[in-house]
Structure formats: C-alpha cells, structure tokens
C-alpha cells in the first residue's frame, strides 16, 4: 500500500512540479505582492502589510478608465459576437453548395496573426496625412464627415476596438456553433415538422435549447476573454494605451509592471486580483443563470 502511494506521487510529480512552479507559486506570489506596501523590486524591501495597494489602484484614474473600457468592451462584444456568430452558423447550416468554402472564409481570421489584422484595421480606419482611410472614404460617399477612428473621439475609438474584437473572436464561435448545430439529431426536426411547428418555433423550442450548452460555453469564455483583452488594443492604438485613453485592465497591469510608468509589481498584483474577483463574480452569475436556461 505504502509503496503504491509512493509510486502514485512519482507519477504525479511532473504535473505537480509544473503546476506548482508556473501556476501555484506565481498565484501565491501575486497575493503576497498585492499586500506588501511600498515594495521595491530593486531592494526587495517593503515597509508594511495592508490593503493600501488596492485602495491606490481603485483610486487611480487610469485604472478606472481601464475598467470602464473593459466593461464596455465586454458588454458590447460578447452578446454581439455570439449573436452574429449564431446567425452566420445558422446560415451556414442552411446552405448546401459552397458550405465548405464559406466555412473556410469565416474561419480565416482565426489563423491570422492579431498584429497583422491590427495593421489591416489601421489601413481601414487610420487617418494619415495622405488619406483618411477606407472607412472614411465610404463615410464621405454617404455624405458624412471625417471621423478619426484611431486618434479621435472616445466613441470612435471604442467602436473600432469593439469591431475589431468581434471580428477576431467570431471565427472560433462560428466553428463551435456550426458543429453544435450539425450535432443536433435531425430526427428532432423531422418530429417537429410532423407536429406542424414552423421554423421560428423550431428554432426557439428545439434548436436553441439543444445548442444552449455550447452557447453558454461561448458566453463564459467570451466574457473571460474580453475581460483579458489587451493585445487587440495594442494592435490598434499602440503601446501607450493610457495616453490614448483606451487601456484595458490587463493593459494597466502590464503598464504597472513594465510600462513607461512601470516598476510597481504591488499595484500590478492588486489590479490583477481585482480583475480576478470581477471575472469570478461574473462567471458565478453566469453559472447561476445557466442552471435555469441551459439544457444538458
């Protein structure tokens, strides 16, 4: 018996070692940093233990801006991207010819480099000395004035960021939803058709509940992914996000560590823990709602 448990530990060792080094230790470390007041990374010293880091971060206007940006991004992109992905998947499911072609086209953004896509969006939206960008040309065509989407008003920048995020996350959602739709047993549709259900009722009463676990999965991962947004903002607005007013929470954490104003691991840790608390709360709420609405 004893020998067996020794063997078991031996088998577990690689996983424990890796998880311990790269997951548990950093997590604990973050917690420790966040509670150490005035920590100095050069001298490895601090002068107190308490919640000062949290209160500082929560009062930092840059952080509040980042929270606002992140929440806006989450609230706008998660429902929109999931909804649009569902519509496209339904469309893909309904057509026969060229389905493979369209599936490939819709999946392309997934395998495209984020920064390359950011560059493309720059060309579409950025106003330079030579051109106002493709989108502005189109706006002109409809008689609207020039909008600077990259350096202009807040709503314009937010629009571009959301647009970009939706475009980037869509392929994965379409992939998941098309396979979910395909996995619904066609007998249910036959049965519903026999019973005289119209397509709207079939969608509402059969399709939607049947794929609800997958939609739920996408919403949860979508929330978490959007809360962790950072590289999208960088791709569009460059690295100085605070100056652009487009920082996200993760961006704020990064800036606190390595940015121009960086070198404050304690503040970064506190911000990271606040983000963690937010994500945990939202996910719990999601789970509670899903108990009623999701059918496994």
């Amino acid at each position, binding site marked *: 018996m004893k020998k067996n448990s020794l063997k078991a530990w031996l088998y577990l060792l690689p996983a424990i070692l890796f998880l311990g080094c790269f997951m548990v230790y950093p997590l604990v470390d973050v917690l420790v940093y966040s509670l150490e007041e005035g920590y100095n990374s050069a001298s490895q010293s601090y002068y107190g233990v308490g919640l000062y880091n949290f209160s500082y971060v929560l009062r930092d206007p840059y952080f509040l801006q980042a929270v606002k940006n992140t929440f806006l991004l989450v609230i706008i992109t998660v429902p929109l991207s999931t909804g649009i992905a569902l519509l496209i998947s339904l469309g893909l499911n309904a057509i026969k010819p060229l389905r493979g072609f369209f599936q490939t086209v819709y999946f392309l953004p997934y395998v495209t480099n984020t920064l390359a896509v950011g560059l493309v969006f720059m060309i579409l939206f950025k106003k330079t000395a030579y051109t106002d960008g493709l989108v502005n040309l189109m706006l002109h065509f409809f008689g609207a004035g020039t909008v600077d989407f990259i350096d202009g008003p807040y709503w314009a920048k937010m629009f571009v960021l959301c647009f970009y995020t939706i475009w980037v996350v869509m392929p994965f959602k379409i992939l998941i939803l098309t396979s979910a739709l395909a996995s619904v047993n066609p007998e249910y549709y036959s049965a519903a*058709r026999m019973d005289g259900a119209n397509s709207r009722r079939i969608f509402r009463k059969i399709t939607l509940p049947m794929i609800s676990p997958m939609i739920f999965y996408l919403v949860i991962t979508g929330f978490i992914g959007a809360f962790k947004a950072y590289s999208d903002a960088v791709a569009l607005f460059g690295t100085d996000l605070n100056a652009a007013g487009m920082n996200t929470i993760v961006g704020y954490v990064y800036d606190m560590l390595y940015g121009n104003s960086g070198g404050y691991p304690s503040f970064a840790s506190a911000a990271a823990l606040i983000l963690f608390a937010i994500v945990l709360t939202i996910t719990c709420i999601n789970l509670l709602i899903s108990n009623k609405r999701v*059918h496994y």
Partner: protein
Amino acid sequence: MKVVLRNLTKKFPSRNKKGEEVIAVNNFDFEIPDGKLIGLLGPSGCGKSTTLNLISGLEAPTKGQIFFGDDDVTRLPPENRGVGLVFQNYALYPHLTVLENIMFPLGNLKGKDKMSKQDMQKKAIEAARLVQIEQLLERRPGNMSGGQQQRVAIARALVKRPRVLLLDEPLSNLDARLRLQTREEIRRIQQETGITTIFVTHDQDEAMSISDMIVVMKAGVVQQIGPPQEVYDDPVNLFVATFLGTPLINVFDASVSGGRLVIGSDRVLPVPGAKDGKIIAAIRPEGFILDRDGPFGLKLSRVEVMGRDTSVVSTHPDCRSPFVRSIIPSRKDFRSDGGLVRFSLVPEKVHLFDPESEKRVPFETGGTVQ
C-alpha cells in the same frame, strides 16, 4: 381513415459510381382498411421505413399517389396530413418535460384551432392517460426507461387526434419482456382509439401477433398482403414462407415423381397436381408427426425439450440449412438414441415452390400417405 397507395414509387439517386438509382419502394398499390392495425414487415433495407416516410410526408414519392380516405394527400406537407409519427428512437425533446413534449404539437396550432394553455394541458393529460403515463408528466425523457419513452412518443403522436398513426420499429429499442408488454399496449391503444395504425417491423413475431393485416416486403417490392394467419398458411413464394414463422420453415431441394414428393430417397407425400421434376419443398416445423412407420426418415442429432413441446433437431443431406427442426408435442417416451427418426407429414404444412421462380406450386392436400 382508409389509406390507399396507388402505384407508389420512390427512387433515390445513386450513391455508387455506376449511377444506378436505388428503388426503395417499387410500385406499391394497395389499400389499408379503416381502423385496422397494419404491420409492414420485411428485412432491413426493404423499403419499410421509406414507405412510412412517404405516408407521413417526410419524403415525396417519385411517382404515384397516396389517399387518406378520399383526400389525395400526395402533395400535402406532413403537418397538413393529420398523421402522427412515432420515431424509432422516439425523438423526444430532451429539454422538455413529458407534459411539454406531449403538448408540443398542440402549441403549433394556429388560427381558429389555437388552444389555450389549459386546454392544451387537458388534452395532453388525456393522451398521457391513454398510454398510462399520467404519473410521469413532470419527468424529463432522459430519466425514463425505454418503454416509458415509447409511451410518451405515442402520446405525443396521438394528442392531435391524427387520422393515421405511424410507428417506425416501435419495439426494436426495448428489451424482450418489455417488447411483449408494449406490443399488447399498442394493440390496446389502437383498439381504444380506432385510429388506422401502420407500423414497421423486421420482426415477424411482432407483426403476426398484433396486426390485423401484414404487408410482407422485400427489396422494395410487396410480396404478399393479408391477415397474418393467411399469409403464414398460404405463402405466395419461398421468401414469404421463410420469412414468417419461428423456428424457420425447413427448406429441402426435392423432386416430384409420379404425383409424389420425393426428398432424398423417401417418397414423403402424395402431391397430386404438381408436375414431375425438381422442386423446392418447405415444411413447417409443426408439419412433422412422429410416426414409427412414417415415410420420411431423418438422422437425429439432438432433442431440445421446451416444456410445452419438444424440438427435434435432425439432419438431412438435401436440407438447405444444416439442421431440420421439427416441433412435436412433448412426450416422455421419446428416446434420443441417435440413429433415424421417422415422420409422416401434415400436407397443409408442406409448401412447394418452383426452383426457378421460387413461386408457390399448388397441389391438392386431400390425399394421405400410403
């Protein structure tokens, strides 16, 4: 409601390279009388389910017409035909409770047929009572046994009072004991409602035991239609004879000579009216009578006692299957000492078939063995 099929044909486009069409249903032309329970019987791939789908409207025929009573429903979509269909795997919506499942068809009614929720519930409970599941209304299909799911599916098909009820392999997903119970149940429900019911099965026991009429099919072609006993007693061809009956009918390569059926070297039965020459003789297991002086000698290999009767398993070189099975009333004095057993035959239980066409060759059954 009488169901009439006229020259009904369904072809499917080919899936192989040669481009041959598959004819799943070939020129069906028969009438199903009102208020009867009809079994479509045949081996897998014979077009039974396609026939059902054609009647339900889930598939459109290539040719021919379908009438319910005097209405031509050939071009009607399934929801306007007034049919209830029970799928082989029941197709109960897993996320809805039993009550919601049964109510689902009612919720689709529009216009003047639209019902209030109370009425829908009342109707659904009525249907549930008919199939005796009223105590399970709040359950979900996932937590129910196959037999219970089956009942829910039948209730859902019945709740709209269909003109025709269709059941696709209703018993194939149930275990043996439940199968017996459920087939009685289907019979009872059919008789209580009086709805013309058509069910598909590959199990001849099932079809024979509850149907008023069976339709035996093979490779998209109707072989024989009639009351089960009639089809059993008077099979039109070798296929029907071998398809019906357990244990299987015993098939011998035999010949007729001088008005007598000859199997091996035994002149086993006078068959007046049959022409001389090669012939296929099929003998029902119950057609053998143990008879010390009988004309038909078989090499005994074993005896299986089944209580009510005894199954004598023997061999004969001209039998198409390795063993000849005969069922005789059980008797204590039967000795299985190996060697030969002798039988005489019941003429009504012997069927002759043409070796080329495998069609039935009639003979007069009045004679006795001399």
